[in-house]
């Protein structure tokens, strides 16, 4: 609660700093962003009060299905009636006030997911239940992608942590991680090394799955991987030293693919013969991985949009484009980096005042913290978030009502995804994805939705204590 208040005040002050250009507009000037945010904060606090003290906590569990449906409708509707703001169709304009249904959708999705998962007899391992949960998460996600707000949609992947907590196999998280790793490695290291990584991971999994001859399998697998990894080195050596030009035709990738072409049918046959399902899965996973690696280029160039591709290229250092796609991040890093240990002081940030970083009061608000308050400020802000997230998890664990617990996890993962993606983006760990930093960034709908998100949990949590 205190952490929440602290964060919104920090956010408010930093919005003032970010939009201030040295002309001495008051922090309460309602025509400026800081003033507006002040209004948003007051209303958000009012909202929090309403949720805590006026509305019955049981209400939420009851209305979650109609609410979800209603918000889904809004999400679709907004595509047609919204004005185009920075290329996305996700804003409702009501006079001077604009709001983004995608923000509210986080709440409704969290509620419905909690409702679904807390039903008696819901089993994550049952395929039907799992798919239902996926549908609850996936539906708003897809609509939001349809609104060209890919960044906001990405936040929904955070719900996988909730599913994990509620019994989803940990392999899924690992799988997603592997897909991301393969995607990145194919882009940066090339196809060959991606395949080596894939093989290495599979060898590790295979060994893990056979605890009896763990070491034997690990050593053999590692040997094969190492041998294959040495192939390009050997190839380069041959290129330098030998006169046997015909050897140059044996490109490592082709050699590898030939080996794969021989090994895969053989292993599949063996799996069928010995009824070794695990081996079948492993080989199948490899083939899927192979397809993924080879389609990376296609996905990267065809499926992703131009600006998304550029942002990833910049992040992975494939392109240096400080004037174009890389400008934001570079300036943002400069702002944060120049803050040093204790920062330049309130309103003293030059990067901030001169507006080198675009979107500095919204998505890049963390720059202002970084520049003016330095490492200490960043530490404080991150610590506050981590405190909120950890507190949510621990409180959720203490709950006996499944609905409250699951909901707490939903809130925690939402905040975590926003925090990680947003801060990661400003420091250059993540590609530029336009999502706000919860409670800090300028913007009413974001502030409101996070306030509601958190305070519903607090209301539920308080309610819980009454009964138990």
């Amino acid at each position, binding site marked *: 609660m205190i952490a929440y208040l602290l964060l919104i005040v920090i956010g408010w002050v930093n919005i003032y700093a970010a939009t201030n250009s040295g002309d001495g507009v008051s922090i309460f000037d309602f025509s400026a962003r800081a003033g507006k945010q002040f209004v948003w904060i007051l209303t958000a606090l009012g909202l929090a009060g309403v949720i805590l003290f006026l509305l019955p906590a049981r209400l939420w569990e009851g209305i979650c299905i109609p609410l979800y449906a209603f918000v889904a409708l809004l999400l679709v509707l907004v595509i047609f009636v919204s004005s185009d703001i920075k290329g996305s169709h996700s804003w409702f304009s009501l006079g001077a006030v604009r709001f983004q249904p995608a923000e509210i959708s986080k709440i409704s999705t969290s509620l419905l997911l909690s409702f679904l998962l807390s039903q008696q007899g819901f089993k994550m391992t049952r395929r039907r239940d799992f798919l239902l949960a996926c549908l609850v998460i996936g539906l708003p996600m897809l609509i939001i992608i349809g609104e060209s707000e890919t960044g906001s949609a990405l936040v929904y992947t955070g719900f996988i942590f909730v599913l994990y907590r509620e019994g989803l196999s940990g392999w899924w998280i690992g799988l997603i991680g592997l897909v991301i790793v393969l995607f990145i490695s194919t882009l940066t290291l090339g196809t060959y090394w991606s395949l080596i990584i894939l093989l290495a991971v599979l060898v590790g999994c295979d060994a893990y799955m056979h605890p009896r001859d763990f070491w034997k399998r690990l050593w053999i697998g590692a040997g094969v991987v190492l041998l294959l990894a040495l192939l390009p080195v050997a190839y380069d050596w041959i290129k330098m030293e030998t006169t046997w030009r015909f050897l140059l035709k044996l490109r490592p990738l082709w050699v590898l693919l030939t080996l794969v072409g021989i090994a895969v049918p053989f292993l599949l046959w063996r799996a069928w013969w010995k009824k070794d399902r695990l081996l079948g899965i492993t080989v199948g996973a490899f083939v899927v991985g192979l397809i993924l690696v080879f389609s990376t280029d296609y996905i990267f160039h065809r499926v992703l949009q131009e600006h998304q591709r550029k942002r990833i290229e910049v992040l992975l250092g494939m392109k240096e484009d400080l004037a174009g796609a890389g400008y934001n991040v570079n300036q943002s890093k400069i702002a944060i980096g120049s803050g040093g240990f204790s920062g330049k002081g309130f309103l003293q940030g030059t990067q901030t005042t001169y507006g080198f970083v675009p979107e500095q009061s919204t998505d890049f608000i963390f720059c202002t913290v970084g520049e003016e308050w330095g490492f200490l400020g*960043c530490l404080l802000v991150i610590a506050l978030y981590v405190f909120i997230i950890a507190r949510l998890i621990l409180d959720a664990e203490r709950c006996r009502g499944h609905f409250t617990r699951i909901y707490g996890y939903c809130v925690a993962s939402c905040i975590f995804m926003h925090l990680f993606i947003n801060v990661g983006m400003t420091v250059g760990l993540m590609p530029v994805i336009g999502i706000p930093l919860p409670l800090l960034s300028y913007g009413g709908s974001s502030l409101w939705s996070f306030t509601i998100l958190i305070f519903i949990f607090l209301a539920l949590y308080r309610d819980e204590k009454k009964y138990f």
Partner: protein
Amino acid sequence: MNTDGRHIRLLIGLGVATLLLLGKLISLQLLDNSYKENASKNVTIKETIYPTRGVIYDRNRQILVGNKVAYDIMVDPKMVQASDTAAIAAVAAILQQEPDFIREKLDEFRRKGPVGGTQEVTLLRAVPAEVYMRLDEVKYNFPGFRGQVRSIREYPVNAGGNLLGYVSEVSPDYIRRHNGEYTAGDYAGMTGIEAAREKDLRGEKGYHIYLRNSRNQREGSYKDGAEDKEAVPGRDIVTTIDAPLQQYGQQLMRNKVGSVVAIEPSTGEILALVSSPGIDVDKLADIGKYWKEISANPYKPMYNRAVQASYPPGSVFKLVNGLIGLQEGVLRPETVYSCYKGYSYGEGRKLGCHSHKTSINMDESIMMSCNAYYCYVFKSILDQKKFSSVAEALDYWREMVMSFGFGKKLGSDFPAELSGSIPSSATYNSKYRRWNSTTVISLSIGQGEILATPMHLANFCATVANRGYYYIPHIIKETEGVPQDPRFSERHYTLVDTTQFPKVIPGMWKAVNAPAGMGGTAHVARVDGLEICGKTGTAQNPRGADNSVFICFAPKDNPKIAIAAYVENGGFGAAYAAPIASLMVEKYLTGTVSRKDLERSMKQSNLLYRVKRD
């Protein structure tokens, strides 16, 4: 499935993610200093200090091109609101511009954004000091405007506009061609001496780098001035030009097309280089404003005829043939040829001559400029027994002629010099199926395929004045801190022996100084006591009236000045070229001019109507 420990795992995951972020923050904020520097660079103000350009002097240290202070008006768009109509109008009024002009500049900046860290826009360039002073008085009312000191060119005397060349702001194309040496807003010499000696004249720019704080106030030097650089002024240049002579030449050549080149024979220094019509220095100073007018002028004032116009030299070339004849032994001063109004060669054709007494010796032939005499001389050069063919003879002759500097670039320090041309056997082989010495006979009198620039003629005149050698004509006497190119102090001898040269001088002396009625072609050039020796020329011009040509040097012994004047469509050599050249000689040697009538008539005459325009 058992999910008991999973919240712990998730918390650990949260911890790892947090550490990842903090780790990156530590590397950005605590370990890597380059970002601090970048942030400083983002907000530095780089104030360029422009060097003063080198001054150009004449030979007597009179300033030809000086500098005066002007100001570039800079504006910081962040400090001026487009809505502040009153301020913009006030500044615009002072700068004598429309308010919209300022607004457009501000808009342009806002559209393009800060390029390369500059936060200022140049509003106006090279505003005169008087105008700037008025802005300066009220500047405190209009924050955001400031003046950047620049030095611009100033011309105290109207001498040698074309020669000096102009300076202007570099174009994007110019910047591209001189990779890295210039940036927008720099000035550079574009023509004449300004261009030829750009590297010496320009100096080196300096700069001071200041830091700004978040309220746009200056906060000391960047890195305590460690990266500041002081401007190095350009090197001064002393030219060989004699400003009064140059100016006088320009006055005499006004309203005529042509040029005058005066050289000091003992050094090769160019005393005056007049190309007419030329550009007055007041137009030079503000070339941008007059550019249209100048380039629309049908007489092409930008064209430096003294080194870029190739003409047939006409009769002055008889001296060259005479000297070659002497050298070859086919001509002696006593040789007498007769002339009955011309030289007849096969099948009744005749190269005409004016009426003068016949049976003349070499002195008289020079004095009266007899065409027939030189036809005989030229023919006897080419028809010498030692040559197996006329072609061989012609090429031999060409080599002799070129040793005088004709037909090639002299190698002057002046840019854009043309080489002219002297024909070779190959020229005629391609032109005629069969040819012999009579085919090329017009070469004897400097007509036909011969082309030479006025500079060539002046150099030839200096060679005769020196009795056999020349120094490469040059225009730079000294450059501050740079030694003079040694090639300008080398004597260049011709293939004609120095003993032959004194033999043609009496004829040149008589051409000017023979008593009236004796047939001296350049009697008009005579000035008592100056001992001017000269040779007229009347070169055919396919585009109208003949060109008037005259070369002369004076005094006869130890000549101080050699001069060549070439007036397009001026008629006889004696009509314009000789008076103008002799007036300039008189002016240079005595400081005054006694022949006021002649001077007045030369200054007033206008030949432009005769000149065919393109």
